[in-house]
């Protein structure tokens, strides 16, 4: 543990704790809006209505919890793989403050209805500008640390980190192009079908550059660290890296199948989505093959459980996603609850399980202690997986049922069900989904308690050593 002295790790602690706070907010809001969908009287307009809270839920989840912990682990991993201290710890402290300010500002402005309406790019232009500043500070610090590294070779995690830094920057700058009207209101710089195509180029590649490459960087670093086994194939990781970042950018229009954007863009998106199975599953196989001869760790090492279940959900996710990108299947399930079921397996299963493992691994080391309770970590794991599966499976069934009802026709060709008749059938699934959300929320409370106890034990030991 001595080699860790000298790294800028205080800042890592700050990002981990901040991201956990925002993750808590995201899941709490998710549970609230799942109840609001089931019981409309729980909406308290104007501020506490589904339409205003849902963007806060997604922003807190993707940017607060996701980006916050990616910042923590990019800083943690980069220093160790570069065998060098962070280029500028001072800049990182500014970054931490700015990060929390931006997410808090996002929540406040969204609840006030300042909203650009573009999914995952809702923030009005002054807040979006702060995001750009935040990202530049972060990117410069990480890139300079890598440039000034003491280890010549760059491990695959650093590749994914570099791609993330540049990818997010390009996506964010283009899709946030706006015509400001006042401090609190702007219009998209693009119109209609152009705007839609730009938005989903952004939207789907936010999935690539925020919800795929960063967790992969973290997975490739923490799987060997947690299990003591090397990654099965560095070369497979490298091939997967280039094909992943090449193919992803072509697939945005699979969110626009049957919409009035050019057919050839939709067809390309469909084809590339299916091709993406290969690089996605290369990562899955890299995870599985690394475990060869070490599968007993699934019983004995709780970190392996989080990581391997995480990559498994990634594997299911990257088969389901391409299936949804096929025109015929999209015609059936698009706009139904199937899609939130799909998304939440990625968010609650893949991304979050990998992040939980990384936090369980790093927090005891950062505070020079042991994890407070492994049984509690196991409980956290099973509650999280159960809650997530209840959520996703109930939504898949709901989506298929609604799609079937929407498509049902009478012998004379007229439709058999009105929209409302299909919606009424969704209520039971929405109650079940809310139940799954509550279980996931409970898992998060166990997680937070375990981490808080670990941190306070570490602090107490540090005080005792000094005395």
């Amino acid at each position, binding site marked *: 543990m001595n080699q860790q002295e000298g790294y800028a790790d205080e800042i890592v602690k700050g990002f981990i704790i901040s991201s956990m706070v925002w993750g808590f907010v995201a899941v709490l809001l998710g549970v609230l809006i799942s109840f609001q*969908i*089931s*019981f*409309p009287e729980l909406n308290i*307009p*104007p501020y506490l*209505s589904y*339409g*205003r809270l849902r*963007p806060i839920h997604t922003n807190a989840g993707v940017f607060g919890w996701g980006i916050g912990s990616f910042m923590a682990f990019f800083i943690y991993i980069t220093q160790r793989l570069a065998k060098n201290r962070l280029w500028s710890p001072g800049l990182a402290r500014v970054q931490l403050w700015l990060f929390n300010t931006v997410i808090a500002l996002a929540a406040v402005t969204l609840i006030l*209805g300042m909203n*650009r*309406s573009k999914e995952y790019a809702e923030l009005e232009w002054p807040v979006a500008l702060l995001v750009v500043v935040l990202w530049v500070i972060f990117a410069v610090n990480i890139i300079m640390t890598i440039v000034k590294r003491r280890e*010549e070779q*760059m491990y695959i995690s650093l590749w994914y980190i*570099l791609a993330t830094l*540049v*990818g997010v920057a*390009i996506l964010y700058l283009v899709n946030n192009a706006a015509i400001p*009207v*006042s401090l609190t*209101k702007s*219009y*998209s710089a*693009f*119109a*209609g*079908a*152009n*705007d839609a*195509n730009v*938005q989903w*180029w952004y939207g789907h590649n936010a999935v690539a550059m925020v919800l795929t490459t960063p967790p992969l960087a973290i997975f490739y670093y923490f799987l060997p660290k947690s299990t003591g086994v090397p990654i099965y194939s560095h070369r497979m990781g490298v091939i997967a890296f280039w094909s992943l*970042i*090449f*193919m*992803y*950018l*072509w697939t945005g*229009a699979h969110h*626009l199948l049957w*919409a*009035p*954007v*050019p057919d*050839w*863009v939709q067809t*390309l998106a469909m084809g590339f989505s299916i091709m993406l199975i290969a690089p996605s599953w290369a990562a899955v196989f890299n995870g599985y093959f690394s475990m060869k001869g070490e599968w007993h760790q699934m019983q004995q090492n709780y970190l392996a459980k989080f990581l391997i279940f995480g990559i498994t959900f990634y594997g299911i996710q990257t088969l389901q996603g391409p299936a949804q990108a096929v025109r015929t299947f999209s*015609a059936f399930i698009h706009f*139904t609850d199937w*899609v939130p079921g799909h998304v939440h397996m990625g968010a609650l299963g893949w991304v979050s399980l990998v992040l939980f493992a990384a936090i369980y691994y790093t927090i005891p080391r950062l505070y020079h202690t042991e994890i407070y309770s492994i049984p509690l970590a196991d409980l956290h794991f099973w509650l999280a997986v159960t809650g997530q599966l209840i959520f996703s499976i109930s939504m898949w069934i709901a989506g298929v049922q609604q799609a079937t009802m929407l*498509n049902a026709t*009478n012998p*004379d060709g007229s*439709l058999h069900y*009105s*929209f*409302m008749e299909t*919606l*009424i059938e969704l209520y039971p699934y929405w109650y079940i989904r809310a139940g799954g959300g509550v279980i996931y929320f409970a898992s998060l409370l166990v997680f937070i308690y375990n981490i808080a106890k670990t941190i306070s034990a570490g602090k107490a030991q540090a005080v005792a050593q000094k005395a």
Partner: protein
Amino acid sequence: MFEKRPIILLLLATATIMVGTMVTMVAPFKWINDPKLAIASVKPYTPLELEGRDIYIREGCNNCHTQTVRPLLVDTERYGEYSKSGEFAYDQPFLWGSRRNGPDLARIGGKYPDAWHVKHMKDPQSMVPRSNMPDYDFLQQPLDTSVTERKMKALKFPYSQADLAALSGKSELDAMVAYMQKLGNDIPWRKTGRAEVLGELKNPFQDNMAVLPEAKELYLQHCAQCHGRNLQGDVGPGLEDLDQPDSKLFGTIYSGSPDTGMPAYGDSLGKERIWKLVTYLKSVHRR
């Protein structure tokens, strides 16, 4: 070789990302903005409609309502003519959405009379039982018009001072309703697409009293919101004293009557249930 050169890796990764970006994000601008796809009858938003649209955005309506009808039977039968890219030329941002917790609104304009929208916004469940839409009663607050002119200028939409003056005294709800009524109405699809009733129009349930309990339930669920629980009339006219042949009543319910604001129910109820409603209405008339 890239294992040791971070800046080259960074540049190559950027180039790799840009290939798909150029082809699928930049190039389509040329195709989408092809003059052949423009539709002359599509007009920019008026100041009132634009304010309504901004309230739609502010309240996050697009989280539950889509605005794009796909060229698929399930969509065109349910919502109307499929969406064309030329119809969205003035939509900054686009509001196609991604999830239908509520119905698609791309063709909502002209489907219901203004009074229906007002009642529905204030208390959705009073018009659509078991709907899970939140109530938007608070939209009765006065419309803030302080930046309306700047908005029109920013979007380069034509307007007159009279348009702006007409905003005084309007509520947010007025703006929202104006926006709803504009949606999808810039092409004359409702006249051309109006469902024609084919075949012999003979009521299969004529004088069949056994269907009356079910028919009354249908009436209460789908008609009473506008015509009153006791057919006394409210948003729509009273129906106690209907003296029309069965076939004419059927046609009005099935295809709607755009001039009076009566929506078409052929898509949502189907023929059989509409005949039952006709039977119910006639039975009340006879009493």
